[in-house]
């Protein structure tokens, strides 16, 4: 894949990326003993080895991962434009389509790696510190983490599209966070409106767990994929016409 390696190196050589990856790994590892201590003190097992990875996941997809996603996207598009790095890329013999594609792919891989890190560390914590760690729980955890990639990526593509209009990474980041907060509030106040937004599906892994393969989950799956297709097209269209 043209330029993917280039994008990946740019992303991973940033000190902030490394630091964030380490924080991502450490948080579940520290949360485990803490939860264990609190539970022993109060005597209940709200979190056991089976549910702990899912609790961490629900925290991560509501607060942490959208933030990191907004961070990496605003840096990758608006940030590069701000630092005047993009023109250098554009003069290379790569089409704009491949350039755009590689950036999205890079974001997707980054997100996937973040999810996998949280998944593995929370599973390890669950296995070491908490009771009732089962194979069934392990499978459930891994599936839930993989499923969560889809709604997050759909939000990511929307951000990519909108960030095309913004020329500075800090502005893009602020805007993305605000937009995400609005989507979350909408989910609670106007579910009928919110079901047209991907943030509605943030915790759709719970729906998969509860009811498995049915019309609703299939419908939401089709929705997420077509949302992805739509904003990928629109985003690329804007990126293609843009002058740097």
């Amino acid at each position, binding site marked *: 894949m043209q330029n993917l390696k280039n994008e990946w190196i740019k992303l991973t050589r940033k000190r902030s990326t490394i630091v964030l990856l380490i924080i991502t790994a450490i948080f579940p590892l520290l949360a485990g003993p803490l939860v264990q201590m609190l539970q022993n003190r*109060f*005597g*209940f*097992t*709200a*979190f*056991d080895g*089976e*549910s702990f990875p*899912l*609790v961490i996941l629900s925290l991560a997809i509501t607060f942490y991962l959208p933030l990191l996603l907004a961070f990496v996207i605003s840096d990758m598009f608006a940030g590069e434009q701000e630092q005047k790095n993009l023109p250098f890329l554009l003069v290379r013999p790569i089409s704009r389509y491949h350039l755009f594609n590689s950036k999205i792919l890079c974001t997707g891989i980054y997100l996937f790696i973040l999810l996998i890190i949280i998944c593995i560390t929370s599973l390890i914590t669950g296995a070491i510190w908490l*009771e009732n760690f089962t194979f069934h*729980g392990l499978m*459930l955890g891994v599936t839930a983490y993989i499923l969560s990639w889809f709604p997050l990526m759909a939000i990511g593509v929307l951000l990519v599209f909108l960030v095309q209009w913004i020329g500075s990474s800090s502005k893009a980041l602020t805007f993305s966070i605000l937009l995400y907060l609005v989507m979350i509030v909408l*989910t*609670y*106040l*106007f*579910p009928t409106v*919110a*079901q*047209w937004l991907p943030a*509605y599906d943030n*915790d*759709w892994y*719970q*729906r998969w*767990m*509860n*009811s498995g393969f*049915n*019309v*609703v*989950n*299939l*419908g*939401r*799956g*089709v*929705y*997420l*994929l*077509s*949302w992805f*297709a*739509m904003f990928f*097209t*629109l985003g690329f*269209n804007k990126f*293609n016409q843009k002058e740097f």
Partner: protein
Amino acid sequence: MKKKVLAAVGISGLLMAGGVLSASASSSGYDLFKTAVKKTHNVSSFTAHVQANLKDNGKEVYKVDSLNVVNLKNDASSSTISVNNGGTSSKIALYSKDHQNVVKSSKDKNYYLKQEKEHKAESKHEKQKEELSPAMQKDVEAIFDALTKNYQNSITTKDAGNGKTELQLDLSKNQIPAVGQAVVSFFLKNIDQQKEHMDHKEFGSLQFSDLKPQLPQLKNNISVSSVVLKGQVDKDQYLVGQEAVISVSGDDVKGVHHDLVLHLTSSLDKLNQSDVTKLDLKGKKVVNVKDDHEGHED
């Protein structure tokens, strides 16, 4: 180029709409439940048969059986409650009409009467406050929808015959949200303190301690292992039957494992047609009870 973009956006937009609409169209069980709850909320009178029993490791430790006739329009109610608490059973009859509250227990022959006068205006005022404005009701509904969105499609419907529909929601341990787990466990752990607070209440010979369930004191590993909720909606879309089975497990102070199962059923009958018959106190031994803690009611 432009045409291609438009075509791609159009197709994906259509697919998106299809996905969302097909997903939102199929939550019929939940919608039925919601309309039934709203409709049942507005009935003016009903007769409710409520049963509850609690089992500890398969042994029944507590059982309540009550028949309540409630007429909200006249602010009247009467109920007969029988409690079986670990073998000892007691019966209580409660009656309330025309600002008269009467309590009669099976322990003695006295009828305890309490008159209410000055509360009339207050209770009316409270009632008005309780009723939500339509806009607020809608907001509450929206929040409820959002909170339950992942469970709505797990509700199964079954035709129970006679125009009745049965709704059921099964939740296993992993499907119960962690917050719910924590709240239940915390409540069970701290139930001791609440009991002590209530212990001193009595009404004549009727003592509250006779009625409280003897729960094993859970100390460790408390968790909710499953919740089953059932509802029955009749052909007029009233919620006439409700059932809940909640299983909790945990260890007590000695390390003995307990599986507690709480089984609640409630069935409604004679909707909008129930009336409380006036209690005749003539020739009966009546004891007047004064409100000794006026002003700071809890």
